[in-house]
């Protein structure tokens, strides 16, 4: 059996009365490009926050690369990189300052951090705005910078919460190229996205969360064959069709709006 990069057992998170995540058992093998899907409010961001130590689970256990997150959070964080929902940038720093800072936070020495920061700025096309404060960056630039900061230390597992949201096609192309390089060198990528076409193109494996519960998990082909068997129509399904079938979003007919007829 392949080494597991991410493993959770009975992961739960409650906010007062609301059970945002319920008994989630995730298995992500090392080296996988893993898509974590779900409708709005399904519990994707809550799960990713728990997996990266930003949110404490109400119950359950998380292991990253075999390390228990609750017992060894610092070692786990050394191995992972994260682009969280709100990007978590220090927006009164310039891009290079932030990247060097992030590198040093992950334990790189200052010279290495500076060298990698320069390379990342060039790669992301940000090296012509080195004097600008992050607060003055566009949303796409901020996203690219957050991504650069997440990979500067060469993490073995990368968590990305909606990395392509609000990013133009050129920037998205750059990000995808970088992610593919990371996969090629053995890293694991765990991403959430609403853009199912991108997930289908990039990811080999997916999990679907719905109303806080994990409703499907496996390779895209496994999920496709499972759903196709149910439908029995012989059609090759897209990830969007698989997703809609599993979360019950595909309606027999779209309801009418009386005033739009």
């Amino acid at each position, binding site marked *: 059996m392949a080494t597991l990069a991410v493993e959770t057992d009975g992961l739960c998170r409650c906010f007062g009365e609301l059970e945002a995540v319920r008994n989630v058992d995730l298995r992500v093998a090392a080296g996988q490009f893993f898509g974590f899907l779900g409708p709005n409010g399904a519990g994707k961001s809550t799960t990713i926050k728990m997996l*990266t*130590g*930003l*949110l*404490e689970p109400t119950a359950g256990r998380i292991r990253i690369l075999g390390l228990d997150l609750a017992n060894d*959070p*610092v*070692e786990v*964080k*050394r191995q*992972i990189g*994260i682009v*969280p929902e*709100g*990007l*978590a*940038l*220090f*927006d*009164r*720093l310039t891009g*290079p*300052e932030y*990247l*060097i*800072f*992030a590198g*040093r*936070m*992950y*334990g790189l*020495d*200052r*010279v290495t*951090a*500076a060298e990698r*920061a*320069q390379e990342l*700025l060039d790669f992301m096309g940000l*090296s*012509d*705005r*080195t*004097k*600008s*404060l992050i*607060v*003055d960056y566009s949303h796409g630039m901020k996203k690219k910078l957050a991504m650069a*900061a997440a990979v500067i230390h060469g993490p073995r597992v990368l968590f990305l919460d909606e990395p392509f949201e609000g990013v133009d096609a050129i920037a998205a192309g750059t990000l995808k190229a970088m992610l593919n390089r990371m996969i090629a060198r053995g890293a694991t990528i765990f991403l959430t996205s609403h853009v199912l076409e991108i997930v289908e193109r990039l990811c080999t494996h997916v999990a679907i969360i719905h109303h806080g519960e994990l409703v499907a998990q496996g390779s895209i082909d496994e999920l496709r064959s499972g759903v196709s068997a149910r439908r029995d129509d012989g059609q090759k399904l897209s990830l969007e069709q698989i997703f809609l079938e599993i979360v019950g979003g595909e309606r027999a007919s779209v309801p009418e709006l009386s*005033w739009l007829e």
Partner: protein
Amino acid sequence: MAGVTLLSGKQQHLGLVAWLRWRLFLNGLRTRRGKADLASKIILGFFIGSVALAVGPLLAVGSWYAISHREPFILPGEFWFVFLVWLLVPILISGFGAESDPAFLLRFPLRYSTFVVLALAHGIFDPVAVAAVYWLLTILAGVAIASIGALLWAIPAAAAFAVLNLLLNRTIFAWLSRWMAQRRTREILGALFILAMFSIQLVGPLTQRYGKRALPVLTRVASASRLLPPGMAASVITARHADRALAGFAGLLIYSGVLTWLLSFRLRAEYRGENLSEARRASAVTRSTVGAGWHVTGLSPIVAALLEKDLHYLVRNSTAYLTLLAPVVIVILLTVGHGGPHARQPVFAHSSSFFFPASIGYVMLTLSGLAYNNLGYDGPGVAMLFSTPIRFRDVLVAKNLLHTMVALVEVLAVSALVRFIVGATPPLVLAMTLAGALMVHFTNLAAGNLMSLYFPRKLIPGQMRRQQASGVAVAANLGIQVLLATLAGGVYLLSRWAGHLAWCGVAFLVLAGAAWIAYRRVLDLASGIAWRRREILIAELSGSD
């Protein structure tokens, strides 16, 4: 869509905006913070409202006296008072922050006239405007009691004056919103605002010192003020001839006309969809080599990186910058009336042993605010700190180091200033003060770190508006400063009573040692506390302001 009536009347839009405001207010009460804010507003409103109500009868008596005794200065004075309050208080309250953006209404089919009415309504229902209108009514009441006939001109004059003030208020805010929409201008104006606040404090001492020489200039300025709206409004009421009253009234109308033009200029731009946002012209392309971060001997690379980051934040934050300038300005302010080391002013007769401790005390007091919410400026970035393999203790160590460096620079600057202006401080007083400062510093760091972890509040660099720390942290800060002042005073008096002032310094050093131990203990606990409270810290510091 046949058969549906689309209502797009002005009244309906106004009603909907009023409803929106009401719902926002009610929904704001769902959180504990919202309820606490409302409670503090009610308490504050009660006191301020009482003062505003009490001012009314005084104005009425004043205007009655002015009319019945033909006193020339009281009525203009009253109109100046109303004018300045209406003009300045809303700006002071907003702290040079942008008002709510009206652009959110532009997506709806709103007529320009409705847009204008909404902009004006914003000003009419402002509590300061309500108070000002009440004061104008009390002035009219006084005028009526003195001479009912005077109301013939007084009512239109007061009405025109009120309209003018409303237009002025709206014009100022419309233009401020334009400037405040951009970070750079917001920070520049914020800095100017704080400097203006400092400058106002200089008026008293400067008047004391140069008052007599400035009197002729002030008299000329006062007589010229008749041409300004408050003077004109008063002149309409006190004029003995109808043509002079008419001239004053026409003056008010001209002012209102100019303001209407200025306001409509801005409102039209906003209505057309002008982009009031952070967007600005693209800055010049700057490409440079990335230099390595700091290496600070004796500090771990993590603490050095954090310290570097915090220093960058400090120097790019005009608000914090000016807070640091405050002690130096205040020392200058207090010494404006001082004649130098050999002066014979009674207040500073013993200044050499009084001034230095007082100045250092003020430095410590000013800087304490930074310690009690030291994560405030990190904002959403705090989540990044939790996702990296560091101990949160290091984050606080870096912040405390920066605080100590700043305190050191401030103490040195203030000491040099006191030495230069007031004279040398006796060595015993110097040593005693520095020992006391150490005690206060370590206590503030220890308590401040705890308060920052338990009661954080997001702060936006360069913005004055709603920059308060959490109420609990402010109360704790205040309580601890009172406690420290009482303790220091008690120790000082005891050693003075015993006839051994040196004991005071020794006692301060012992207390500083105890505070240092407490500080180290807090640091040891900090990582655990931060980890347990990470959700609250991230939510509170990342949340919208």
